[in-house]
């Protein structure tokens, strides 16, 4: 449930980008920050290892202004994708309102995607949340790699692997080039806010 401060008339919405390591979660946030950082007046916080991997999380907050008298603040987070940072991943998921699952379209990562979505289900269960109920958008990232002849998992297969039961919105994207990055983010924000409004009743 979103953090609501009636005194300050403020709503904080927490969106987490989840997915296998090197899938492009940070790149999604970096694209948003680089392209719109000045417009939305924000700073991105990121903690990386030597090898440029997300160690703890990335954090990109921004305001979308007043809605129904409440100041709506969006907080975008990423989790570290590497398997060994399971505890950190769970910690970042605490209080999550909506999730973008960033899948890697590369053929060689097919199994990692499946494993990661299973982990997501377990991590959410840890907070007594259901993957089937939480607002969730799938993003099939790195589609641009097909231009370089790198074998990609067909969208139909990705849908079958990841979305056959969830039946949620899914976008093919290239976080590096910015294709569908904003579309994905907008979709998850709208889905999440609609759910929050529903829950508040």
């Amino acid at each position: 449930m979103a953090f609501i401060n009636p005194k300050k008339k403020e709503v904080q919405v927490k969106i987490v980008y989840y997915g296998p390591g090197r899938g492009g979660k940070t790149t999604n946030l970096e694209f948003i920050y680089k392209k719109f950082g000045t417009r939305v007046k924000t700073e991105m916080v990121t903690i990386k290892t030597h090898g440029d991997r997300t160690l703890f999380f990335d954090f990109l907050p921004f305001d979308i202004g007043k809605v129904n008298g409440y100041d709506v603040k969006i907080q975008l987070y990423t989790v570290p994708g590497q398997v060994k940072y399971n505890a950190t991943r769970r910690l970042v998921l605490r209080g999550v309102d909506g999730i973008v699952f960033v899948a890697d379209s590369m053929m060689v990562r097919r199994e990692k995607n499946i494993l990661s979505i299973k982990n997501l289900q377990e991590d959410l269960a840890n907070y007594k949340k259901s993957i089937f109920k939480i607002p969730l958008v799938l993003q099939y990232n790195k589609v641009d790699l097909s231009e370089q002849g790198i074998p990609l998992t067909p969208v139909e297969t990705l849908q079958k692997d990841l979305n056959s039961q969830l039946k949620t919105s899914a976008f093919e994207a290239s976080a590096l080039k910015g294709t569908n990055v904003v579309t994905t983010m907008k979709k998850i924000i709208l889905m999440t806010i609609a759910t929050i409004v529903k829950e508040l009743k």
Partner: protein
Amino acid sequence: MQQNTDDALVNEIDGRLDDLFAEDKTPKKADGESSDIKEYPLKDLKAVILSIDWEITDDAMKRLADQVVGLNKLYKDDRIVFIIIQLIGSIGEYIRINKGKSHPDSFKLLNSLFKKLDKVVRTKGLTESEKKKILSVEVNKYKVLKDKLSPRKPVAEKGKQVKPAAKAKAEKADVLPIEAFAEAMDQIRQLIRSEFKALRDELRSGKERK
């Protein structure tokens, strides 16, 4: 009625997001970059480097070694490309031996070497001098990494109780393959020497003309 209010709210947020994040255009390709990717010779090397970045398996390391051998043959006449490929091979060998215990900078360097190799191979109109600059930066990074790895060696030597076999194994695991590095350095030296020689000759002929 309530549904209408909710829709209005979502629509309002949608509009707000449209205002904030309008113009979702994709950036164009960098100038000079060749778009002919059908015959991209580094395709398999790129795929294997990306997969090593995710997980170091024996199969991936073997594929990397095979790619290095194949590309070395393909670029045997292009010294700069040849040297970059050799450096990739050398780092690959180090990662193959050390696997997950490899220094984090080795993965960074492997990616950086590939990026530069890609640039040198794909960018049309890159001059020899620009290529040499690229190579020189990468060789420096290689040296820095080698220096970072070298101090570990005396530590292993200090421990007198270390059994010779174990000691040898530890050394083998800690250092980069020296032969590959020395070979690459020799080639770079020769390249620099020949450049200097050409420059001197040019200066001499200039003086004589005066």
